[in-house]
């Protein structure tokens, strides 16, 4: 009998990666079933296990959860990564929505027309350095604490680290003007569960390559 959550998605980052990060940070072991063909997706749909015919889908605690944010919110609350009260939760939600928007831009990049790639990449870096990172740098500066909200590790910290590493893959020195985020990155990366997730052999997925993009296009008809 499985107590472990089971993740249904393609074998790549996409919308499931933030879920993998959060489960890993919470120290939760999970299983994965990979969708490799269109037929795999159709089967899930025909079996009636995808509420809105979409993945990610995570089997957890007797539920077949869909919708990335719903899944993440559930995991965050279950594992005490969602603040201590409604107001802390509000701040975590705001911060996470920001990093979601930023990571969303990166996720869609490989699916944009080839001639817009350079422009879109420049926009990502601009947004990261002028809209998003300054907010988190300031938050850390204002309270001087190790974590974004309530002096305690939360979903917001995990999500921000994920976003930082993802933007760094686009531009390695993107944190050069953000000393507190650099320190934050070092600190959060060294949390034992996260450190483990960042090591080779973990369930963390690599950045998408051409081959993976082609598979995704085929499975989802995009």
């Amino acid at each position, binding site marked *: 009998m499985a107590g472990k959550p089971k993740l249904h998605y393609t074998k790549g980052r996409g919308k499931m990666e933030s879920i993998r990060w959060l489960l890993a940070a919470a120290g939760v072991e999970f299983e994965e079933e990979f969708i490799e063909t269109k037929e795999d997706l159709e089967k899930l749909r025909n079996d009636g296990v995808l*509420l809105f015919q979409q993945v990610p889908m995570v089997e957890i605690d007797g539920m077949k959860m869909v919708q990335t*944010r719903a899944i993440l919110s*559930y995991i965050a609350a279950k594992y005490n990564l969602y603040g201590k009260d409604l107001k802390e939760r*509000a701040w975590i939600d705001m911060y996470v929505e920001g990093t979601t928007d930023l990571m969303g831009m990166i996720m869609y990049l490989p699916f944009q027309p080839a001639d817009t790639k350079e422009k879109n990449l420049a926009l990502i870096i601009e947004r990261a350095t002028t809209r998003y990172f300054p907010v988190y740098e300031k938050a850390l500066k204002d309270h001087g604490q190790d974590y974004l909200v309530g002096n305690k590790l939360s979903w917001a910290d995990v999500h921000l680290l994920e976003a930082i590493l993802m933007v760094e893959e686009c531009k390695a020195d993107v944190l050069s003007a953000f000393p507190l985020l650099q320190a934050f990155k070092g600190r959060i990366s060294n949390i034992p569960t996260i450190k483990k997730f960042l090591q080779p052999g973990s369930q963390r997925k690599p950045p998408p390559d051409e081959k993976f993009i082609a598979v995704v296009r085929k499975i989802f008809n995009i």
Partner: protein
Amino acid sequence: MSGKPRLTYLNGRGRMEPIRWLLAAAGVEVFEEVYLETKEQYDKLIKDGVLLFQQVPLVEIDGMKMVQTRAIMSYIAGKYNLYGKDLKERALIDMYVEGISDLMQMILMFPFSPPDAKEKNLEAVKERATNRYFPVFEKALKQHGQDFLVGNKFSWADVQLIEAILAVEEKVPAVLSGFPQLQVFKTKMSNMPTIKKFLQPGSPRKPPPDAHYVETVLKVFKK
């Protein structure tokens, strides 16, 4: 000193409308609204540093300047007991709300699609509503036979669904014809006192977007 929430957005539905719905449904009848009409107003807000990510909606509530639609709605739902009784009910409400939000996103973007794409997009809204989203809620209501989607109690999910039903009906009038449970749901929700009031003229509810609204959006958010 005003205890009322203050909303900053354009004078139209957009991403603020679900927030207006939820506040109204929660019985927060009166809230202040600041309407953005010019780029200069928007630039000033950014310069004043009140928009966390330089974006609206902005809702000033309980001493916070909240941004990000979902964060704002989650807070309101939590505060006014529209978020279920436990984690699992919250999970179900979240799933439902996210699905409906995806459908509403199609309607939100509709006025901004090029004229030659409008018919195709309208067809897509109809198809998704009829084949992907409405069947889920029809089934949920049929299976438990209760008035409300989750936990036999009025929640955020119900508010979001009635908003979506009415919004889709504005575009596809007969969309509920294959959904008897949703027809009953629509009537019941429309008659909940707080929602009934919101549906009457003179409430904070905004009309469907027209050409003037689209023009204002493009003007205010021009780069």
